[in-house]
């Protein structure tokens, strides 16, 4: 394996939605050297690879950022970081404008105003949203992009970030990257739980299977404080294809009905995102499933438009309609809940950040799905957080006097970083493959930590088993053999997921109430308990997670870390 050492002002880990936009912000506002390290290729990496259907977060005319905050708050049973949601909301329209300038097609009415879908969404052609962002990134000379470079760990000294380690997946090169500041924008984590279709189509999931929680895990390993891992995101999706449903639900106003054709969602409390899933699960449990979005009779024109809309975002769903020989006008669309994802852009799991998106590690910022406390940021919110993090990082560079890293110190960092990966290349081949251990992990999480098979519910007896088996699996994973850098990446993905899994277990255990149905369904404590109107945070010390309970942070304040 070759070894290379790189120096940069700003390292951005993950060139997805937030990462690209952070880079663009930095390039527009400064002459700092920016390096994006991306495990795939920024043209089609991350959540936006296949396209998205709408911009789900936009302040439509007549509404204010506070309205968006109120909506998010209500949807999350009150428990959000108001400072974060508000600062994000204030930027939603600005970043949207910017996106449009870059080339995104947005539907407008005759007066040139964006056409809304529901109260907060605007209609776009999102098929090529990622190539648009990538092109913009490539237009700046002070941004360097390392595609196919997988980052595996931070370099931290005295709780201050000084860089990160990674390797090129194809070129067999190990990188030690030193940076003044680092923005983590690696997205959330899929593949922690057994997926809906664990066989051939196991990766036909909603969230990208390549977002494996690396950013969470790197933070956890470096002692960063994390928040709200117990608020898992379970999406209500089109059966089998796991394609988004909002386009149908909002687009053609299709209500949810059960197997008997009855409307049911009103019977399960407020129609929150969580309750849309929960109500469906309950109907199934009562024997009234399967459940559907009622689309029959929407008309041929609407059907045709839906077929097109899905090609721009989730082509599998269009193909599915064609396979069935029946489009949505002729057959209702069956729905199901997905496996639980950990994703700070829909729910609130991730780094515990200050209002400027700095993590508890000095100089390390988080934006997008990897950042906690701020649900329902979606595409535009992730862009907004990319911007906020970039601006904070710039200020940090200006305000900080950086220590010189001397040659010997640097070599010591290079050596220890490299040894960590090199050992896997030298392990003998064992009984298990990385894929088998991944499957084993997903099964444990499914059965003992509230996955699909248990209708998302969990209890203490099960969590105890989950935790001990997840820790056993980590021991097995640490002994895996890698024959090349692709294998190495898979091993790190597994180790990262195992760590996220453990965090999820510990957080689920700590919340001794049921705050969000399905998302966090504690069968030992089936009611909401206002004593738990607080954030469950954690820091890993000596290989164990310690829980920290933190009080509510309201809007208006600028929250700062106190360490």
């Amino acid at each position, binding site marked *: 394996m070759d070894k290379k050492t790189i120096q940069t002002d700003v390292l951005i880990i993950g060139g997805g939605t937030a990462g690209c936009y952070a880079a663009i912000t930095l390039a527009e506002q400064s002459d700092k050297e920016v390096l994006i390290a991306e495990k795939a290729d920024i043209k089609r990496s991350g959540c936006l*690879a296949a396209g998205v259907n709408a911009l789900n977060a936009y302040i439509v005319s007549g509404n204010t950022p506070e309205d968006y905050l109120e909506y998010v708050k209500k949807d999350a049973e009150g428990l959000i970081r108001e400072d974060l949601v508000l600062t994000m909301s204030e930027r939603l329209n600005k970043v949207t404008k910017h996106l449009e300038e870059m080339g995104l097609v947005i*539907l407008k009415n005759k007066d040139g105003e964006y056409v809304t879908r529901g109260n907060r969404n605007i209609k776009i052609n999102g098929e090529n949203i990622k190539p648009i962002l990538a092109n913009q990134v490539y237009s700046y000379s002070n941004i360097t992009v390392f595609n196919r470079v997988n980052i595996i760990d931070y370099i931290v000294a005295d709780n201050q970030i000084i860089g990160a380690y990674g390797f090129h997946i194809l070129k067999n090169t190990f990188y030690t990257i030193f940076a003044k500041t680092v923005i983590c924008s690696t997205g959330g984590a899929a593949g922690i739980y057994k997926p809906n*279709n664990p066989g051939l189509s196991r*990766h036909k999931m909603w969230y990208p299977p390549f977002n494996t929680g690396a950013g969470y895990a790197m933070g956890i390993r470096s002692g960063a404080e994390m928040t709200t891992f117990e608020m898992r995101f379970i999406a209500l999706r089109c059966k089998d*294809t796991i394609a988004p449903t909002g386009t149908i639900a909002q687009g053609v106003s299709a209500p949810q009905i059960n197997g008997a054709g009855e409307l049911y969602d009103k019977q399960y409390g407020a129609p929150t995102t969580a309750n849309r899933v929960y109500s469906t699960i309950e109907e199934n449990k009562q024997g009234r499933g399967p459940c559907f979005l009622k689309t029959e009779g929407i008309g041929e024109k609407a059907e045709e438009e839906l*077929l097109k809309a899905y090609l721009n975002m989730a082509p599998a769903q*269009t193909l599915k309609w064609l396979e069935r020989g029946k489009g949505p006008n002729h057959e209702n669309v069956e729905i199901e809940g997905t496996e639980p994802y950990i994703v700070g852009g829909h729910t609130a799991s991730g780094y515990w950040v200050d209002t400027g998106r700095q993590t508890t590690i000095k100089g390390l910022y988080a934006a997008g799905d990897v950042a906690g406390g701020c649900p329902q940021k979606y595409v535009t919110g992730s862009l907004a957080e990319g911007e906020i993090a970039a601006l904070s990082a710039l200020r940090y560079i200006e305000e900080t006097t950086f220590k010189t890293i001397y040659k010997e110190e640097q070599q010591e960092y290079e050596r220890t970083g490299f040894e960590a990966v090199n050992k896997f290349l030298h392990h003998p081949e064992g009984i298990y493959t990385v894929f088998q251990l991944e499957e084993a992990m997903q099964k444990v999480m499914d059965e003992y930590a509230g996955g699909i098979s248990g209708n998302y519910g969990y209890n203490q007896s099960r969590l105890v088993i989950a935790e001990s088996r997840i820790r056993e699996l980590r021991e097995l994973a640490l002994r895996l053999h890698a024959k090349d850098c692709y294998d190495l990446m898979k091993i790190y993905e597994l180790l990262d997921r195992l760590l996220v899994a453990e965090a999820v277990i510990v957080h689920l255990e700590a919340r001794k109430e049921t705050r969000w149905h399905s998302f966090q369904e504690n069968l030992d404590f089936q009611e909401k308990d206002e004593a738990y109107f607080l954030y469950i945070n954690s820091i890993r010390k000596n290989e164990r997670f310690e829980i920290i309970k933190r009080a509510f942070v309201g809007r208006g304040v600028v929250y700062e870390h106190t360490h």
Partner: protein
Amino acid sequence: MSIRINREKCTGCGKCIEVCPGTLLFKEVEGSKAFIKYPKECWGCTSCLKECKFEAISYYLGADIGGNGSIMHVTEEGNELHWHITDAGGNKKIISIDRTKANSY
């Protein structure tokens, strides 16, 4: 797995390999055809289909998620994306999308 690469049609241009978000596509040996090395890892994002100028990559649904024998590929013409679907019986259908137009929903 949800894609198939037709060895006859593949020119080995390498564009699909460049974009795959999962690093799943490789060349068989330097200069030769593309193939999917880790089929069960495929997300079905269709990024590779859109890169291929030679109609060499097609997409299908696994039988476990309702696949019934159809395959799909995509071609580009100006601002238009043409999605070509061929069902198990050989019947063909094209759905065209103007990239300069937004979705109605």
